[in-house]
């Protein structure tokens, strides 16, 4: 009971501390900016630890963070193999192919009105396909290796990317388009100098969604068949053995990879769309 109360007190204290840190212009220092999410995260972990101990939650249901950390450190070799299999081979290759395909499709759809009117409604329908349902089919078609995972990822990221790209390519003001018209700019010139830059905020938005979907897709697809390696495989098999500490370690691999990719995309976004009002604050 004392541990539970301690958890509560800790939570309130951290909340107060963060509130103080972000008031009165202190948030302009980059140290504070880094500190605040860290405090938040540490608090979540500490509260988790205290609650698990305080309420005596069985480790077969929810292990304490300290135990997860031990397992993680002890199994880095195993987890590295899973990371290579699922993230590097499955998710990232699928992400690259899917995004490239979506961009090409977006330009085609944008370029040929017939396609836009014909393909986009059909595309909307196809996109509505719950891709998880396709995972068993992809495993059937492309085998147990990473190729089937990449295929699932391609299908999963294609549509969000396409929608964002098409929306972005149309997100120009009338005057900006008029200007290009007075220059007699060709389609490709308008695309390159006006519409692609204007679309960038949307593209990054799509990319962020796509990158998280890619991780999820690759991991889920492993549930429908995989070699004896991979984050999804690890989660499923460790869960069956009630090794929940291992399950969470594998999840941590997925989360770390996902956050890193997301972080890289965010940095790139900041560098490339610095001019957008949402980046200027």
């Amino acid at each position: 009971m004392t541990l539970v109360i301690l958890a509560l007190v800790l939570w309130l204290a951290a909340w107060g501390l963060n509130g103080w840190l972000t008031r009165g212009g202190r948030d302009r220092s980059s140290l504070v900016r880094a500190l605040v999410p860290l405090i938040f995260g540490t608090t979540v972990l500490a509260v988790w630890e205290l609650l698990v101990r305080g309420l005596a939650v069985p480790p077969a249901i929810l292990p304490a963070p300290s135990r997860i950390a031990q397992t993680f450190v002890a199994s880095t070799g195993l987890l590295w193999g899973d990371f290579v299999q699922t993230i590097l081979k499955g998710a990232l290759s699928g992400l690259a192919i899917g995004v490239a395909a979506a961009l090409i499709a977006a330009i085609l759809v944008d370029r040929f009105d017939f396609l836009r009117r014909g393909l986009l409604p059909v595309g909307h329908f196809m996109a509505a396909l719950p891709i998880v349902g396709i995972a068993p089919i992809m495993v059937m078609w492309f085998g147990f290796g990473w190729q089937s995972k990449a295929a699932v990822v391609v299908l999963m990221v294609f549509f969000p990317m396409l929608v964002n790209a098409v929306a972005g390519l149309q997100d120009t003001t009338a005057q900006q388009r008029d200007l290009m018209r007075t220059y007699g700019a060709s389609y490709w010139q308008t695309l390159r100098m006006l519409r692609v830059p204007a679309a960038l905020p949307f593209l990054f938005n799509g990319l962020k969604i796509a990158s998280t979907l890619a991780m999820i897709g690759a991991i889920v697809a492993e549930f429908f068949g995989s070699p004896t390696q991979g984050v999804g495989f690890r989660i499923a098999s460790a869960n069956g053995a009630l090794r929940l500490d291992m399950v969470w370690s594998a999840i941590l691999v997925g989360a770390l990879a996902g956050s890193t990719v997301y972080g890289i995309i965010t940095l790139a976004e900041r560098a490339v769309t610095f001019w957008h009002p949402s980046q200027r604050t």
Partner: protein
Amino acid sequence: MREKVLPVLTVVLGILALWYLAAIPMNVREALTAAERAGAVVEGGSATERQQLPALRLVLLNPALALEGAWTQDRPRLPAPHQVAAELWSSVAGQPPGSNRSLLRHAGITLGATLAGFAIGSLAGILLAVGIVHNRAMDLSVMPWAIISQTIPIVALAPMIVVVLNSVGVQGLLPKAVISAYLSFFPVAVGMVKGLRTPDPMQIDLMRTWNASRAQIFWLLRLPASVPYLFASLKVAVAAALVGTIVGELPIQRGGLGARMLAGSYYGQTTQIWAALVMAAVLAAALVWFMGFLERRTLRAMGVPA
């Protein structure tokens, strides 16, 4: 009207033609094995040897057999469109709507959980976005973790979530709705944060000169300005909610399109998977269309040029 129908029809016909064509090489191996069992002579060696040859090569070696078996198998790798249509028809119209075998019943189960999850998720997403835009501490601390939360493969955790919720007595529609809410809150939160921050600095300055309260700036400026972003993300979110429900249904096996897909997969009934997939796509398309409809109505009411 004709301007829309013709291109769509062309594209659909094109896809169907491609589909039928693709079914030939996709299904050739099983077709040849079946023919061999029936006593036909098959080029390309034994089944194990044929495994090494590309599918197209096999089609060219045995064109007649390949064609014969392409669109009629019971367990095809790629069912032909008419097989899917037949399965769809029999499971929708051929069953009493309340029966366990009726796809309509399963679609209904999935729809219920999807709507519940979508409602919870989008509401949570909007509230989170409002908090993030208005509270610097939340902006700095929550956003990175909201992002990390999405990199957790919730889908992989679905069985665990079901078990854990089950252990605290939550059953039925809710565990599925929780997973679907988890997947749908994120696009809404991200889109709304962007949308609520979209008014340019001058418009906010103007509000400041009037000493508008935060609530007023929110209701009169940020919210209307965010509407296009809101609907864009609601469309993504409703599709995500459906995915979440289906994922939640996989382990539970108590009906719903997800259970149906898994059962189809479990018994190798590919056409059954495809029929459930098509049904799910119809459902999702309808939900997305409905969001688009609301969007058009709202934007028109806001005087945005068509």
